[in-house]
């Protein structure tokens, strides 16, 4: 998310209407936009930690603003096209610009993106990893010597009693009213505390982020979160825990920072036109939960081992602004409708004009704003797209600035963007920004950030290649959207990547189009042949493991070919040089092995790290000492990766289970040859 121009935050009277008018304007201008190139971008998010060998604990550094200022002040960086777009004019003339950095919600976070979007040249795909390493290097260079950018999804000690930030601020501030984290945990720009405060205000209580605790041998059962303070009386919201906000066996958290303070790996693709964009949106949707489970990296919250492996639901709950009526806890009186999901949640509808999109795939209970839909239809928008946006519009815009309301500017998209950017679904369909030549884009948002840039590059490149295979082979991954929801829940389970099964379409291939009946030739094909009967939707999908989805299945019921073989087949059909293919294979191998269980997810690796740590008492508690060791290991891995010297001699437990031989340091480029690996 970016920074808005500084302003005075306000309530939202007719902002919906303005957003809807702007949306129609954008849509009308851009609906015929054609032939945009395949460009894409990745976003890597970092936690900034303060770590030194001698300090007893590792802390979150809250110096985001200073670090960004230092980055913006770096003349060499800006001369080469890098920098901080929110603080300066970043020159885009450079043909190979350096990366750019952005603030994030958490004041301990940093986001970095490439200096310009990536293209689809296969050699270009290999620059991603190097660019990610450069980003990390530049970020580190603008930090204090004891500060480090690390790519853990969450900080294990965020919200523990006592000191976990540097500098220290006491919790229970007026904005967040959290009993665990201080107001200063969030980016101080007015947008962020306002966002958090408005969510709380709208809900009528604090957000409730409860994660099931992992029960180890010595974890009490029932387990009561020992860090919850039931005797706090600073704010009315302090009553929440006395009213049952912190149930047994759940780690209880109460602020937006517990969710929005998570680091993700997001990929945005530009489509050639709106039709292709809508298709990509739909086809990538069912892949979301699979990639979430496969990138699982979040087993610890607030100093305790959780019984889930991923961040998703925690973010969802951390920004859940639904009222008690919308949640269905009270009969509808002031709210307009019951809303089954948070504004941060999996997608709720499909939008493609693909004829293969069957009515059965839609959620019959989708909540939409009928009046917005009617206005969009009246403005010429088609039903599917109008439905999609009318669903986004059931949410309030949450943050509106006084200055924005003075006049409606249809050449801008601020009102629409305001609403769109606070609807955090696992895919985002992004219209072209007003006044730019950027095309229709689709953002893939479910992946968790990985510890190394090698892994982050691998998942980014894999996603790029699978989109190319989807478009080339006209693949069809449709399943009912409610099954995608279910899969998203399934993906949370501990080791879901190996232990759980996901609904997935059995046959992803297009139906053959019969030869056309045109022409007067007596031998023209006839159309009298009845169309192949349409099978029930339930027959189209089956429960599959992540391994089956990724590597293919040989079950009796279906022979789903596997996403990796599909990508390999795409690569077989294009001209790619041996070196590039070799490097791309390394990425695909990582994903193949993560899916098969040959290698561990970061979540599993972290669990083992904690379990083996001498300070761990089998009671689910992840203390300062364990956290320090974990962060130290992650920093060491990062430094080895930066230096390109491989992992040999690195004293990190189970590293081979996380990374195998990848980037192990054999050979000049650090690429381990698979022939070596077999020995």
């Amino acid at each position, binding site marked *: 998310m970016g920074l808005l121009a500084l302003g005075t935050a306000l309530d939202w009277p007719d902002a919906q209407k303005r957003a809807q008018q702007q949306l129609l304007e954008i849509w009308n201008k851009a609906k015929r936009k054609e032939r945009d190139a395949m460009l894409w971008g990745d976003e890597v998010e970092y936690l900034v930690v303060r770590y030194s060998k001698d300090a007893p604990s590792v802390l979150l550094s809250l110096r985001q603003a200073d670090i960004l200022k230092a980055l913006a002040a770096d003349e060499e960086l800006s001369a080469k096209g890098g920098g901080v777009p929110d603080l300066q004019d970043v020159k885009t003339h450079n043909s190979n610009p350096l990366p750019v950095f952005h603030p994030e919600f958490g004041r301990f976070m940093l986001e970095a993106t490439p200096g310009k979007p990536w293209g689809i040249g296969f050699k270009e795909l290999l620059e991603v990893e190097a660019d990610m390493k450069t980003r990390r290097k530049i970020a580190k260079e603008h930090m204090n010597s004891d500060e480090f950018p690390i790519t853990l999804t969450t900080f294990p000690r965020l919200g523990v009693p006592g000191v976990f930030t540097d500098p220290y601020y006491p919790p229970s501030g007026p904005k967040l009213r959290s009993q665990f984290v201080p107001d200063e945990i969030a980016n101080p720009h007015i947008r962020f505390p306002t966002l958090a405060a408005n969510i709380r205000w709208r809900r009528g209580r604090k957000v409730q982020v409860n994660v099931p605790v992992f029960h180890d041998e010595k974890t009490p059962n029932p387990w009561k979160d020992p860090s919850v303070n039931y005797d706090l009386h600073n704010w009315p919201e302090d009553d929440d825990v006395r009213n049952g906000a912190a149930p047994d066996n759940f780690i209880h958290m109460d602020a937006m920072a517990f969710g929005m303070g998570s680091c993700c790996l997001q990929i945005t693709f530009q489509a050639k036109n709106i039709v292709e964009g809508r298709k990509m949106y739909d086809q990538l949707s069912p892949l979301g939960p699979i990639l979430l489970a496969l990138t699982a990296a979040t087993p610890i919250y607030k100093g305790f081992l959780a019984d889930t492996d991923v961040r998703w639901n925690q973010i969802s709950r951390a920004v859940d602004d639904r009222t008690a009526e919308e949640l269905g806890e009270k009969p509808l009186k002031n709210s307009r409708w019951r809303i089954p999901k948070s504004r941060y949640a999996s997608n709720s509808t499909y939008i493609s004009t693909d004829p293969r999109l069957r009515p059965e795939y839609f959620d019959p209970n989708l909540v939409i704003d009928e009046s917005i839909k009617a206005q969009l239809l009246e403005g010429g928008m088609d039903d599917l797209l109008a439905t999609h946006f009318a669903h986004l519009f059931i949410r309030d815009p949450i943050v509106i600035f006084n200055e924005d309301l003075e006049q409606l500017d249809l050449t801008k998209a601020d009102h629409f963007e305001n609403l769109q950017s606070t609807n955090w679904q696992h895919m985002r369909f992004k219209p072209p920004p007003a006044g730019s030549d950027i095309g229709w884009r689709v953002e893939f948002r479910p992946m968790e950030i990985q510890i190394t840039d090698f892994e982050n590059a691998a998942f980014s490149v894999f996603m790029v290649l699978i989109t190319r295979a989807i478009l080339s082979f006209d693949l069809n991954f449709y399943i009912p959207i409610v099954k995608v929801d279910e899969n998203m829940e399934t993906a949370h389970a501990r080791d879901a990547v190996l232990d759980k099964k996901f609904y997935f379409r059995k046959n992803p291939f297009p139906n053959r189009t019969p030869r056309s009946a045109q022409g007067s030739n007596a031998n023209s094909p006839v159309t009298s042949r009845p169309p192949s009967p349409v099978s029930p939707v339930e027959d189209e999908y089956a429960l599959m493991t992540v391994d089956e989805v990724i590597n293919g299945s040989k079950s009796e019921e279906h022979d789903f070919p596997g996403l990796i073989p599909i990508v390999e087949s795409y690569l077989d059909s294009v*001209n*790619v040089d041996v070196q590039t*293919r070799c490097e791309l294979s390394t990425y695909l191998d990582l994903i193949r092995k993560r899916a098969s269980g040959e290698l561990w997810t970061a979540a599993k690796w972290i669990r083992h790290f904690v379990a083996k740590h001498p300070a761990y008492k089998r009671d689910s508690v992840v203390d300062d000492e364990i956290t320090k060791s974990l962060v130290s290991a992650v920093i060491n891995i990062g430094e080895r990766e930066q230096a390109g010297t491989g992992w040999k001699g690195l004293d990190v437990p189970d590293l081979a289970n996380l990374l195998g031989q990848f980037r192990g340091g054999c050979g000049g480029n650090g690429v381990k040859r698979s022939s070596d690996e077999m020995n």
Partner: protein
Amino acid sequence: MTQIVLSTGNIVTAGPSIIRKPGITRSNLELTNSLRSNFLAAQQDYAGSPVSSNGNGGHVHRHGHPVNGNSRPAIDAWTATEDDGVLYVPRIDWTAAGLQENRAQYEITLKLFFLPSAPATKRTEYINEALRLVMKELRIDHIDLLIVSFPGISFEGNCEWEADKINATMGDDEEEVRTWSALESLYEQGKVSRLGIAEFGTEKLQRFIDKVKVRPAVDQINTKDCCSVPPPLTKLAKSEGIELLTHSDCTDILPSGILRELLGHGPQGAGVLADDENAQNGLKGDLIPEWVVKYTAFVNYRGVIENKGYFAGAELVQA
């Protein structure tokens, strides 16, 4: 003597034939499977009425194709002899041909396989015929990259070094250079922008470069593990500005036994060729596979494969 042209149509959107099974590094399954499914599809599309049942209901394959040999439509219904005297299996609807975008957006690559069963002396004809068909199918007048695959050359061995050594003794240098001159003239006419060869190891490539006028821009190789290209080959390619590209085709992509099976009356066949049991039903004679061309239309700026397919040429020699 009858010329036969087999075709797959666009296989990119035609289902699983294009998916390579994991673990198989080189095969002709893509070609044979897509020919087979295109024959079946044409038989369905050109059948005058719903496929007649012969009483036993017919066995229906899992993808819905009837495979019962007795329920096929007449051969002339789904094949066609065009004015040029060539028999097209299946018949081709040329009106459906062409690319979706501007020609400039594409990289169009052809790989032409000269088959061991065909005489080297006729290769110029094969080249012209293959190019004619692809150009007609894609409605184009020039090719970006034309790779030729000569018979009897491969890159196989227990290790890459050994494979490179064995490779040096394979093929027929003189024939290859002679064939190349026909390709050079296409290059000089501007019909082909870049020429390439397949499976040339270090020594063979060096000898080839020394003899030809227009150097290959591409050498397509298949190694079991694409990360272990023999270093001398990498070095030579680099110094000569030749791109080493990957592929996963076998060199003898259409052996006559397989072609006969594809067109015969067996359970997997299209029922075009007569055999002892079906003496009155189909073409008689020896079938000689001559060449295969694979074409790929890749939309450069989007990384999308829009069209990929094969034509195969064969000659039916009456006994």
